[in-house]
């Protein structure tokens, strides 16, 4: 069977790279002695695939992986066993069986929601103006942080942008394109906010979630449920 798992990569793990997260998950699965399937060949590996890359330094509330199992296992049992073998900061939120026909996470996920935490609540007015300025204009050109240094227009990839106060902290929430065809990186987003006059420091960034955008609606990669955006954590 194929299992799709939603997990949190906590603050504690934010410095781990994609590859290190992969290794972490593999070790959790082995410690939990789950019936994982292995690839063939000289170097057998667990048939596991992680969703979109989360940049080093950023933690995530709703991240995903797909896993192939050799026998049936209730999601509930999977979650209990895997959680018991997990390091601090790795929390399994939900798991669901998905048919093999469902495309891979990397093929499905096309949207990310980033939350940029601004140091000071006093920045409310300024943040409001910066957001306003970005939304009003057609372009938001920054230098790409990718491999090729070039000018890049983030604006078409910014679907939503708003500020809010959560637990007494000021946050900018950005719903942006994510994936191979169009991608807005969180560090580019910071550059974009700064280019429009943000003077406050961004003290933390996390990814609220990964989504599948269909028209104007957003769905969860886990169960195709419609997602109401940003109703708290």
């Amino acid at each position: 069977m194929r299992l799709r798992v939603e997990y949190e990569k906590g603050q504690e793990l934010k410095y781990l790279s994609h590859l290190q997260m992969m290794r972490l998950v593999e070790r959790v699965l082995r410690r939990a002695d789950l019936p994982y399937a292995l690839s063939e060949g000289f170097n057998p590996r667990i048939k596991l695939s992680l969703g979109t890359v989360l940049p080093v330094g950023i933690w995530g509330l709703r991240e995903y992986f797909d896993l192939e199992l050799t026998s049936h296992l209730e999601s509930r049992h999977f979650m209990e066993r895997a959680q018991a073998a997990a390091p601090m900061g790795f929390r399994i939120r939900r798991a669901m069986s998905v048919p093999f026909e469902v495309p891979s996470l990397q093929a499905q996920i096309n949207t990310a929601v980033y939350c940029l935490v601004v140091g000071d609540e006093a920045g409310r007015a300024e943040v409001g103006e910066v957001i306003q300025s970005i939304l009003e204009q057609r372009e938001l050109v920054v230098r790409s942080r990718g491999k090729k240094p070039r000018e890049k227009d983030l604006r078409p990839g910014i679907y939503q942008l708003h500020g809010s106060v959560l637990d007494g902290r000021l946050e900018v929430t950005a719903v942006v394109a994510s994936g191979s065809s169009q991608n807005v990186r969180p560090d580019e987003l910071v550059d974009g906010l700064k280019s429009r006059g943000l003077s406050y420091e961004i003290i933390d960034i996390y990814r609220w979630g990964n989504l599948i955008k269909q028209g104007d609606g957003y769905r969860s990669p886990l169960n195709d449920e419609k997602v109401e955006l940003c109703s708290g954590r």
Partner: protein
Amino acid sequence: MNEQLRQILPRVQKPARYTGGEYNSIVKDWESALVKMVFAFPDVYEVGMSHLGGRILYGLVNEHPDYLLERTFAPWPDMEEMMRAAGIPLYALESRRPVRDFDVVGFSLQYELSFTNVLNMLDLAGIPVWSEQRSEQDPLVMAGGPVCFNPEPMAPFIDVFLIGDGEELLPEFLARLQESRGKKREELLLNLAGLEGVYVPRFYQIEYHADGTLKAMEPSHPGLPERVTKRLVSDLDQAYYPLNPIVPFLDIVHDRAVLEVMRGCQRACRFCQAGTVYRPVRERSLSTLQHQAEALLRNTGYDDISLASLSTADYSNIQRLVRHLVEQYGSRGVGVSLPSLRVDAFSVKLANEVQKVRKTTLTFAPEAGTQRLRNVINKNVNESDLMNAVEAAFDSGWSGVKLYFMIGLPTETYEDLDGILELLAKVRRIGRARAGKRLKINVSISNFVPKAHTPFQWEPQISPDEIRAKHGYLRKEGRRLKGVSLDFHQPEVTWLEGIMARGDRRLAPVIYRAFTRGCKFDGWREYFRPDIWQEVLEKERVDPDFYLYRKRSYREVFPWDIIDTGMDKEYLMEEHLISRQEVSTPDCRYDTCVGCGVCPSLGVELELKGGDGDAPAGRV
């Protein structure tokens, strides 16, 4: 400090080196711990976390309800710079408390070229680097590990050395420390010096002859031992072994579960220090290892288990153990690693079992190119052993092997270098016939450093110029061998290793000055500065040639004679003498006792756990 770290960490390479929180790491209650120790590894996290001794001590001490052991490593220079700029002292990963808040800072000395890192870490911790400058408030600075078998170059920086196996000694040491709480530092150290295996260098007076050689080392207090005897775990099978080791987030150098199948090696290679300091051989039983493997894999989730020892193919139950592990865990994708193979077909047979799960690299170490020189160094391997081994390897589908040689061995001539080239040509011929163009032979050529407590401790060392000449020769002649790639060790590294390996206390000011001039991570090519070392040796008027190139007399008292490994100096002399006659010495586990003195003087016995019918085949 956490706030400052939050700002710094995103700007350094591999921040996970500095965060802690790994699976199986232990954060104990600070207030209730009676003795607080930090294990300090003077190299980067990935190297330090790969070290088995540290894993053993971490589990051992933390199992004790009254003691606490945390970890710290040398920060990489980018991190160090930021820490110094922000005023963050060296801290321990578990509690993130400054290292100077602990009772004991215990350094693990695995390599001579980590000495400047020890000083740098002390400095970063805000602890005076010189032992005599430390006050009552400073932690006790302790060191252990194989390099402590010649502790003298570091003696003025270290308050107390622990010599030999730590499993029994360290808990005794911490208990003595706890009993002595409230005592003045000097009295405390005197108390500790009474424990067997503990060396407190400040209590030993040194006299030199006019020619610079040592005249005597005498204890300055009554009741202190003339020589400090190494400690030893006599029953390894019953000894503590950590079954819940930390699983790092980062890819460390040896990123796998480790089974220590035995400790010690009695092959008696004359260049090898480990052979002396870990003697005699003590094995673990098959059932203990099976049980440990099960627990280790369950508790770590590793997909690879390494069978560690100085010569794993010599473990008397090796075949059964390998078969068991492959059968038991292979179907779950867990492989087995054999770090050191003997040069013979038996070893390849073992590797073949192992590769049913995961393909590994085959490594053989003939060490020298001619039978004559192999006899001199007592590497009891002959050419047909090597040819049988590589033939078996290529027949089994390997398309490459890795070979280790050493140059600069006593009595070596260019004929011996030609011997290396001829061996490589023969291996290549065998490989070509079977692996064709895919053939890849990687050859690592290191430079011999005479080590304390070995039969070659009286030998002069090869100079960097000679090394360069020999490298040049091998490189030039080796170019004809397509598919064979030669890798050479840096001559200047060998030079500095050699100075420290047989050095004495007079080197301490040199190490200090090198540290103040910014030397650190000397074992890393990108940071090693031999020019600065040359300069500070001159400034301190210390002649490196004295340590490197002298042919020492049998009458000479050595600085490391203060440490008693159990091996008789007369035995080493005899081994040295017969090496010149190219006479080999047998392996005492198969032949008769060679009379090295270790077993009777330490009250132990060679401990083999061999079962019937599974004695190691292919005695070489």
